[in-house]
Structure formats: C-alpha cells, structure tokens
C-alpha cells in the first residue's frame, strides 16, 4: 500500500488546498497520471502520482487545507509496467487542453461511498479551470455536454448561483507575492551569491534564426528564446557543476537538464516552471513545449513536476527593455542565468569596428556549490554555443 501525500510544490510551500479529486476509489492509476488539483500560493497545480496501482481510499475532502506531507489518498500498488510511461514520455508536455468534454472510465462499484465522492465529475479542462478560478464546486453544476459533462459555458451560470465567493484577485496576487518573498528571502539569507556577466555578440545567432524562420511556415518558426535555452543546455553539458541542487550541505548534480523558465503572469506575479530535457529536444520541439508551458502557466494549469523539477533557472528581461539582470537563485538550485535585451553596439570584429547585436548574459552562482572559475567557464561555454546556433 502506498500513500499519496500533499506534495511540496515549491521551496517554501508548507500547506495546500486539495481543490479537486480527478479519481475515485477503485480507479486504476499509472505512474505520471494527474489525479488531483492542489491550490497553492502560486495558483492551481495539477498533481501527478508516481506509482501505479488502484485508489483504495481518498483520505481528504475537496476544499481541505492540509500541510505538506499529509496523506491524501491510499493506493494499492500493482506491478503494471505496461501502463507506466517512460521517463521521456512523462516529461513530454501534453498538448494544450481542448475545450471538449472528457469521458472517464466506467466507475467501479463503491457502494459505501457517497455519490459525489464515488464518481469524478465529467468536465472539460477549461470548465475545470473556470470553476477553480470562480470557486465553483463542479459537483453542483448541471452540464450541457455529452453525457452531461460540464463545459466552460456552464460555469458562469453556476457561479452566479453558488454560495462560494469568487477568489479575490488582490488576495491571489498577495499570496503569490508572499510565496515569492519567502523563497527569495530564504535565497538571499542562505545562499552566498556570486555574480558574473559578459556581453555576447549574438549577431550570427539572430541572422541564422532569421534565415531559418524565413524558410518555414509560421507554425514552425522559432523565437530567440529557444536558441538561448538550447545554448544554456549546451553550456551545462560542458560545465555541469551549475546544474543541480544544494542539499544536506552538498552539491547534488543533476544529469537531466530541466530549465526553469521565468514566466510573468498577466496582471502581476511570476512562476518559473521547468522545461524538461532541454538538451534532448530539437528546437522545434522545444518551441512547442515552451508555448504550451507559457500558455498553461498563465491559465493556472501547471503540473506538480513542472513546479519542482527545474535544475537551473533562466530569466530573461530583454522584453521589458532591461539590458542586464542579475538573478536571485531559486533554492535549492545553485545557479540562475540572466539574459538582457539585445542591443546594437560598436564591436571590434577582425580588427575593425562594426555594429553588432549584443546581449548581456549573467550568472548568479551559489558559492557553496562552485566558484567564480566554474562560473566563468560556464559563461564562456554559453558564448561559444551562441556563436554556433546551427549546432544546437
């Protein structure tokens, strides 16, 4: 028997609200299945289960505020390797949610459980998002979709009737600011940061990107961020000491390269979910994954692994016109890379002054885990990777 517990979905998360169960007793689950939605200070997160089995018992009711580590469900574990996706498969983001109703597997009999606890409410992903956002319990909504599934259009009417108040946007933002404040204060309190930076000529990288984008239709075009992330991953392969965690007074290197990608939320707030296996993906695959991740981050549909798996974070402030950013490390990571705005600068090329496109790249490192020499090697490797984008 295994326990499914309230996960820690961030460095300083202490509690979470079990927003919604997506399974019921008797349901079979495979490793990587999303079985619950948890409300955190950083929004609603879809939480996966990491062992295969059958749900024996749901121990916590929807809407319950529980500490991290609380047993939420008991799972009777089974040997079911066929149903377990590979690591690569679980790391691949799902396509954006379609606004259609989903049909769950036929419910297993569980006569002792109340009706609402027995069956998962059939609802489209968009309806679930709207319901969570407006504080509407899906169990009370009359669905207009196939087999009575709740669709997005059903939620506003239910919201008007429901006794649950719509979450106050100001409160949500305040909670997110508190979560960011807690993590960043811990970082500045515990991590002895060192900072390095250098200007990199990215003229060639951007010219290569422009040529490539001009030769393919719009859906296959890339944003510069894809090249930057691929270059960071390539530099990590050469200088892996920056990729990992500081835990139990030691540096724990990570073989996978999962880059936290800072996403600003409309109206305020910031999350840095993980893009998995950046070095393994082609630029086109990475572009699709990044688009999907940003879209879901802004719609409050991130998954638990995306909140906890990042091995190094990349923050880019160029969009906002900022030429230089020295980041604050997200614990327990040991480094953060900052990317500034691309600007035109006079630059010496082959002994001649020329106008080139230049970007400031920075590294904030955890001095407990490595030192400035290592950081310098990393930045040089990053500059080298940016000079040969066709190899990324």
């Amino acid at each position, binding site marked *: 028997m295994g326990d499914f517990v309230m996960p820690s979905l961030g460095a300083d998360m202490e509690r979470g609200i079990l927003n919604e169960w997506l399974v019921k007793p008797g349901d079979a689950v495979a490793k990587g299945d999303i079985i619950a939605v948890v409300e955190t200070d950083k929004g609603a997160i879809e939480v996966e289960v990491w062992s295969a089995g059958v749900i024996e018992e749901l121990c916590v009711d929807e809407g319950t505020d529980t500490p991290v580590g609380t047993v939420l469900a008991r799972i009777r574990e089974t040997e079911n390797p066929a149903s377990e996706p590979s690591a690569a498969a679980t790391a691949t983001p799902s396509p954006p949610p379609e606004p259609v109703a989903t049909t769950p597997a036929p419910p297993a009999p569980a006569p002792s459980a109340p009706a609402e606890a027995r069956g998962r409410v059939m609802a489209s992903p968009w309806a679930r998002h709207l319901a969570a956002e407006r504080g509407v319990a899906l169990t009370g909504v009359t669905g207009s979709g196939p087999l009575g599934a709740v669709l997005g259009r059903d939620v506003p009417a239910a919201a008007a009737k429901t006794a649950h108040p719509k979450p106050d946007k100001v409160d949500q933002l305040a909670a997110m600011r508190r979560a960011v404040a807690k993590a960043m204060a811990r970082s500045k309190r515990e991590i002895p940061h060192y900072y390095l930076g250098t200007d990199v000529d990215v003229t060639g990288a951007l010219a290569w990107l*422009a040529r490539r*984008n*001009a030769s393919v*239709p*719009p*859906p296959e*075009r890339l*944003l510069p*961020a894809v090249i930057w992330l691929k270059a960071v991953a390539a530099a990590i392969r050469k200088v892996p000491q920056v990729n990992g965690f500081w835990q139990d007074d030691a540096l724990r290197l990570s073989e996978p390269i999962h880059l936290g990608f800072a996403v*600003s939320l*409309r*109206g305020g707030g910031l999350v840095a979910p993980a893009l998995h296996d950046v070095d393994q993906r082609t630029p086109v695959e990475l572009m699709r994954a*990044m*688009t999907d991740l*940003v*879209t879901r981050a802004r*719609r409050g549909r991130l998954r638990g692994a995306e909140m906890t798996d990042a091995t190094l974070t990349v923050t880019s402030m160029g*969009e906002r016109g900022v030429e230089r950013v020295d980041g604050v490390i997200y614990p327990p990571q040991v480094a953060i890379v900052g990317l500034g705005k691309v600007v035109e600068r006079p630059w010496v090329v082959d002994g001649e002054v020329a106008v080139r496109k230049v970007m400031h790249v920075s590294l904030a490192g955890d001095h407990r885990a490595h030192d400035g020499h290592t950081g310098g090697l990393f930045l040089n490797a990053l500059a080298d990777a940016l000079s040969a984008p066709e190899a990324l």
Partner: protein
Amino acid sequence: MTEAIQTTVLDLLVELAPEFEAGDIDLDEDLRDQLDIDSMDIHQLATRLYETFGVDVPESDRAELTTVRRCVAYIASNR
C-alpha cells in the same frame, strides 16, 4: 469584410489573453500595453492569423500587429 476580420482578430486575442473581453480592447491602443502580451503571444497571434486567414506575417512585418486596427488592415490587404 473588414468587420468580419476585426471580429475574428478580437476573438483570437481573447483566446490568447482570456483575462480580457473583446469589447474591452481598444482598436488603436498598443496591444502590448493594454493586454500585457509579449513576443510569445505575438508569435502565437501570427500563427493563428496564418491558420485562420492564410496570411503570413513575416517577422519584418510584426510591427503591423501592434494594434487591432493595423492588424485588420494588414490582413485585409494581404489576403
């Protein structure tokens, strides 16, 4: 025809930024300023315009996507 294009463009923008309603979007105000959108959103908008109208907005013309009115005019003249 222009009105139909405008309606579709507004629908695409609301799809990208569901925090807003079509009626709230000023046709002449910079989209980045009023909807808080970034290059990823602009990229997605260009992709959706291509899929919807068959009009390719190359990167050299991305400035035409700064307002709804300019966007509609670009689509109308390049269909």
